[in-house]
């Protein structure tokens, strides 16, 4: 309450000053006092500044955006830079003192984006131009038509040209002239973009005269969007599938190959996520910070593998041949690991940041947008699968592992240290789970409960795919992901999951050995 008043009174004062006929006011100075006012007034001032074409506007607006625009109690505005603080009017150097940053909200930020866009559309930096072109698309004002045309005539970079054309079309919709508007409608009809649809519908509401043309344009866009939606759903399914694949791969080794039911598998995943967090914290502020995530992959693998090896040598090996007991015991181990992590790191979520190259969307030819982190996780999932296959097929360790699985006694007589192979296999499976944790730290909570959400799904994937078959795990995970995502829009997320689970249960009872069942005598045993 107090703060409101303190902001408001000087503003009134300033208004009086502003309207005092002291000297001729240009657009810049008339707009300025608004910046010390309420959010609405700031937004208005920003819009005015955007169209002012005043050279002082750009640094001022940038300062506002970065929180470097300060305001004194009396409403004087100051710009803070690395070099020092200067007054906006007059430009004389001064002390910041008790001045506070001018705060912005969404409304102001929206206005800023548009204003900066119009001001930067002719910038020499192509990145800024592209951003500006995008911003202008959203702010869509008829005032932008002329600058956009100018910009378009000079632009050489194809990506920016495309965006400029879009923005121009959008701005034309805001023109008072229906002929110009129709130009815009025609251009937007060729775009496959939800924002274009939104713009057109908005225009339709404002200009009912053009309803017919706009409807036709929207129908065209929607037709293409529908196709894209199918592709998007498929991508989302694959991405969910790759998460399931990552979570299940470790299990495919420990359960599928060794037959060990490890209920603490989810906790191995969780440990991997915490390893990611620890690596990130260790690298924070060092030159390694940008590559913390790739560095976390081996770290997570090693941590989870070490815990796995200890678990196998210390506990699980005494229970071979008694899978149900192993199940119960590892459940207890899971409880202990969870609580240990909770006591060490606290119950709160830990923040694992995504590196810049994993954020945002990636635009494919045809305008299809895929989220970067999901793309990376799909790639990572396939890489890890490749790693597992390679380790089992082409290494000495893989050979010994397969030998021990097929016939422990004969393998032992061949000089293979079966105990060591068991420990390594289990450690390997656990390590894979740890690597999955790195991926999950990018999309889910890094909390002690992280693993519990994945354990049942992982078991379902392995059993559905066929125990002991990596191909089955891959196909099973991807299928479950796609089916789940395809059903979600109709059934809702919860029901989709329930239906998928029931579906798997029915499937398993028809084919108890899963999709890629091992056939023959080995399976009969």
């Amino acid at each position, binding site marked *: 309450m107090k703060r409101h008043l303190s902001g408001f009174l000087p503003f009134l004062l300033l208004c009086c000053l502003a309207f005092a006929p002291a000297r001729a006011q240009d657009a810049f100075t008339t707009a300025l006092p608004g910046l010390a006012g309420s959010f609405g007034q700031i937004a208005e001032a920003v819009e005015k500044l955007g169209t002012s074409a005043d050279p002082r506007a750009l640094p001022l607006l940038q300062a506002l955006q970065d929180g470097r625009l300060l305001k004194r109690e009396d409403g004087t505005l100051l710009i803070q830079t690395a070099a020092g603080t200067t007054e906006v009017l007059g430009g004389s150097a001064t002390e910041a003192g008790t001045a506070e940053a001018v705060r912005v909200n969404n409304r102001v930020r929206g206005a800023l984006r548009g204003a900066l866009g119009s001001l930067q559309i002719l910038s020499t930096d192509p990145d800024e131009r592209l951003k500006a072109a995008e911003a202008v698309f959203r702010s869509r004002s008829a005032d932008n038509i002329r600058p956009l045309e100018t910009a378009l005539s000079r632009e050489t970079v194809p990506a920016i040209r495309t965006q400029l054309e879009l923005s121009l079309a959008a701005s034309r919709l805001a023109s008072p002239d229906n002929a110009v508007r129709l130009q815009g409608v025609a251009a937007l009809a060729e775009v496959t973009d939800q924002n274009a649809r939104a713009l057109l519908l908005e225009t339709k509401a404002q200009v009912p005269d053009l309803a017919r043309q706009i409807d036709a344009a929207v129908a065209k866009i929607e037709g293409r969007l529908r196709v894209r939606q199918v592709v998007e759903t498929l991508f989302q399914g694959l991405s969910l599938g790759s998460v399931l694949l990552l979570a299940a791969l470790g299990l495919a080794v420990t359960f599928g190959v060794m037959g060990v039911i490890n209920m603490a598998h989810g906790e191995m995943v969780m440990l991997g996520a915490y390893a990611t967090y620890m690596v990130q914290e260790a690298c924070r502020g060092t030159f390694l910070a940008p590559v913390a995530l790739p560095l976390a992959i081996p770290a997570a693998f090693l941590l989870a593998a070490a815990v796995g090896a200890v678990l196998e040598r210390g506990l699980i090996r005494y229970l071979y041949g008694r*899978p149900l007991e192993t199940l*119960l015991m590892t459940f*207890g181990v*899971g409880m202990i690991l969870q609580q240990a992590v909770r006591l060490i790191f606290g119950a709160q979520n830990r923040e694992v940041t995504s590196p810049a190259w994993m954020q945002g969307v990636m635009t494919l030819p045809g305008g299809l947008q895929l989220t970067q982190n999901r793309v990376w996780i799909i790639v990572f999932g396939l890489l890890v699968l490749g790693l597992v296959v390679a380790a089992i097929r082409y290494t000495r360790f893989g050979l010994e592992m397969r030998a021990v699985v097929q016939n422990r006694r004969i393998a032992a007589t061949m000089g293979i240290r079966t105990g060591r192979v068991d420990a390594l296999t289990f450690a390997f499976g656990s390590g894979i789970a740890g690597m999955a944790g790195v991926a999950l730290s990018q999309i889910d909570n890094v909390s002690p409960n992280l693993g519990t959400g994945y354990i049942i799904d992982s078991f379902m994937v392995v059993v559905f795919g066929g125990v002991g078959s990596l191909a089955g795990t891959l196909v099973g995970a991807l299928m479950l992901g796609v089916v789940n995502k395809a059903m979600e829009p109709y059934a809702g997320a919860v029901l989709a999951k*329930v239906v998928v689970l029931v579906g798997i249960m029915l499937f398993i009872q028809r084919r*108890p050995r899963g999709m890629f069942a091992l056939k023959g005598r080995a399976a009969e045993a």
Partner: protein
Amino acid sequence: MSATTVTLPATPRVTLRLVLWGAVLALALIPLLNQLPESSALHVGDFIVSVTGKWITYAILALAIDLAWGYTGILSLGHGAFFALGGYAMGMHLMRLIGPRGAYGHPVLPDFMVFLGYQELPWYWLGFNFFPYAFLMALFIPGLLALIVGYLAFRSRITGVYLSILTQALTYALMLAFFRNDMGFGGNNGFTDFKELLGMALNTPLARAMLFYASLVALVGSYWVCQRVSISKLGRVLLAIRDAESRVRFLGYSTTQVKLFVFVLSAVLAGLAGALYVPQVGIINPGEFSPGNSIEAVIWVAVGGRGTLIGAVLGAFSVNALKTWLTTAAPDLWLFALGGLFVAVTLFLPRGLVGLFSRKVQK
């Protein structure tokens, strides 16, 4: 799976029976001692009564699991689902009995339906205002589910860990389904704020004592049924199935039928336990379906000693007592203790606490 039944020699059997009846008597005394004035040295607090009443229902659940797992080798990780379904059936009855005493004063609809905008009672809620119907449903619905799941699973010869994973998925799917508010079971909040049962106000010592005795009778009854099964030829067929199922088939027994019988019986007992549990704890919600709960219940049996009925009961009481104690005495560390116990028991005491005891007896 190796044979782990503990067959006690004849003399300890008599002692065992004495111990059992002694334990039942001691339990039966608890509500009576509760009636003594608080100053008396023998007074037992209300808390003990209610918490012991709850453990008794857990013991019934443990018996049910033991019958399926300890005797027949069917490790179901979904018994919590049968327990919860029994609980829901009883919960529906209790909700109907609230009648117009709910916050909105609606004569028929429970509160959660009123504020979620239901206009009328969903069809599957009909009839639950009658106690016998609700009680029957508490047994019938778990039984029916077990029949369907068991038939599908046993017919396709899904055994061992596959069955465990399947039943775990079952209870998980049910949990997700019951969390949905659209199911008409109150979603996450489930049912609470029960008022009365069979004309008794639930928040009175009398009602607590009555429920306590009902549970005790049910426990003794369940014990009797399980014992009757275990000492009959059926019990020997079960052990035979557990140890060598295919051999039993070659003897001409339809193991699918036998296992189905036991699984359904076990589910019905679990449902009974759930039905007695809910009025005592005053809440039923989808959390009861969570896979962790089912695994925990299996672990009670493992701790007590599977393949013996007394072991199941002992396990349910001791693990839960430990949990009740530790969640207060060591709120930050109790998971270590409990997790450690599970690890230790599976590693060092494959026959559970009873194994410890009977080894001494045999010496």
